[in-house]
């Protein structure tokens, strides 16, 4: 297509109007990352000081070094044979963490599939939303613990009930984020796609999902965090493996340092899972960065 305008001159004139690129230098990026370590170190220091000066009773919160020893035993201690149904601790760390992660991932994956599908249906059709919104909002208000007895009745003690509870906990954020963000896709995007030739039945894939992705990803992150938090509830249903099961066993025998080890494991794995999810989805939401 020949054009008469001096495009080079036009582009040069426009360069001054380009939005400034907000790129941090490598040094500043490292410095800002390092800031995130400061608060945990301060908390750890305060905890060590309070334990060393016996400001806190070891019966309420053991010293950091006691917890560290328990953590070492949990992951690297000698594995002892336990009776069936008894939750192992020494040397059983990797097995418990693996069981919890697997349980969480299975339920989270199912929650993502169901949440995004139902969320899309609710967001794309006002009729479907009007029909199901009251029921879904009412179900969403039922606390997770209220699902515990019925899960045990429906799925029995153990794995099935645990997975069901994690699924219920993880479902709502992704479902609501999908429904809300799809319903709020700017009309201009839909009109543009229609005008450029996208048939109605393909709009969800070409416009609705990509436009809603940043909020769906936020919903995924919340769902993953909740799924991980619900693992402990799920593992109260009588499973003999999993970090939650270990913590429940430690509570019954009063071994507080093992409970704190479990809390650390939850925090570290949860944080790591969120980092991985953010890394995996960064490409999809790059456009929405400010």
């Amino acid at each position, binding site marked *: *297509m020949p054009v008469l305008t001096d495009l*080079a001159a*036009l582009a040069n004139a426009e360069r001054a*109007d380009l939005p400034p690129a907000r790129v941090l230098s490598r040094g500043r990026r490292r410095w800002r990352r390092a800031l995130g370590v400061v608060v945990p170190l301060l908390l750890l220091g305060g905890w060590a000081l309070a334990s060393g000066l016996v400001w806190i009773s070891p019966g309420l919160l053991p010293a950091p070094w006691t917890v560290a020893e328990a953590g070492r035993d949990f992951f690297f201690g000698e594995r002892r044979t336990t009776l069936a149904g008894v939750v192992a601790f020494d040397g059983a760390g990797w097995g418990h963490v693996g069981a919890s992660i697997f349980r969480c991932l299975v339920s989270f994956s199912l929650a993502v599939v169901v949440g995004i599908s139902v969320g899309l249906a609710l967001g794309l059709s006002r009729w479907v939303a009007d029909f199901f919104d009251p029921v879904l909002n009412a179900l969403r208000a039922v606390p997770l613990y209220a699902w515990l007895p019925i899960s045990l009745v429906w799925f029995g003690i153990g794995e099935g009930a645990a997975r069901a509870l994690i699924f219920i906990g993880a479902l709502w954020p992704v479902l609501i984020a999908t429904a809300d963000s799809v319903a709020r896709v700017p009309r*201009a995007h839909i009109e*543009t796609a229609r005008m*450029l030739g996208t048939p109605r039945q393909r709009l969800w894939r070409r416009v609705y999902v990509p436009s809603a992705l940043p909020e769906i990803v936020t919903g995924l992150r919340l769902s993953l965090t909740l799924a991980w938090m619900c693992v402990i509830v799920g593992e109260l249903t009588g499973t003999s493996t999993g970090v939650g099961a270990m913590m429940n066993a430690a509570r019954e025998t009063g071994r507080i340092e093992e409970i704190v080890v479990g809390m650390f494991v939850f925090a570290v794995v949860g944080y790591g899972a969120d980092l991985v999810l953010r890394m995996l989805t960064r490409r999809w939401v790059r456009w*929405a960065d400010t």
Partner: protein
Amino acid sequence: MQLSSLRAIGISKSFGAVAVLDRVDLAVHPGETYALLGPSGCGKSTLLRVMAGFETADEGRVELAGRVVRRPSPERGMVAQAGTLFPWLSLRDNLAFGPRESGRGDTEEIVAGLLEATGLTEFADALPRQLSGGMRQRAAIAQVLANAPPVLLLDEPFGALDAQTRLRMHEWLRSVLAARETTTLLVTHDVDEALLLADRLGLLSARPARLVEEIPVPFGGARGRHTLSDPAFVRMKAQILDRVMVA
């Protein structure tokens, strides 16, 4: 590309109790650029949206080359003031959107040609938010032109740009329209823009809008920033402003 005429025949449109358009008749000749002027809020954009198929007329019809058209389609490409680029796609993918939807095998060549024609080749992989306002609007027009529509509908496409950039964009668009001979309907409140780009002007009355007058633009092909100081241009601009104010 076959040149096509675009007609609005007896278009009326109301939103609830508010009558916006009242039996508007309008004909844009094949290859012509026609600018619609009128008081603010008179219904210019509504008329354009009806012509694009985004709104349904209560009465009347829109014809493209003698055929009645109702729904949005790639043969009537519309660009709005806010731009129509998809923010999640790179510039290259935005331009390729239309050709890919129609399954064209020469998408790469079309996109490369449009990037060159808009002077945006080096920004092909940039996201829309990384472009300046003028670049974004050129890209939005190129996105629509990628489908080679016989009709282009422009709704104050440069309204959000500063005066200097707008003038550069007028010169660029004029050269593009001259090269492609696309039938173009332009809605604007800027009389300079209308006189620099259009072959003919239509004046709409206040709401409910009716077409009250059509005025041919006598300045020929070579229009640009120099035209703005032409005494005939200045005189005509004053006359049109007077008519818009009393419309």
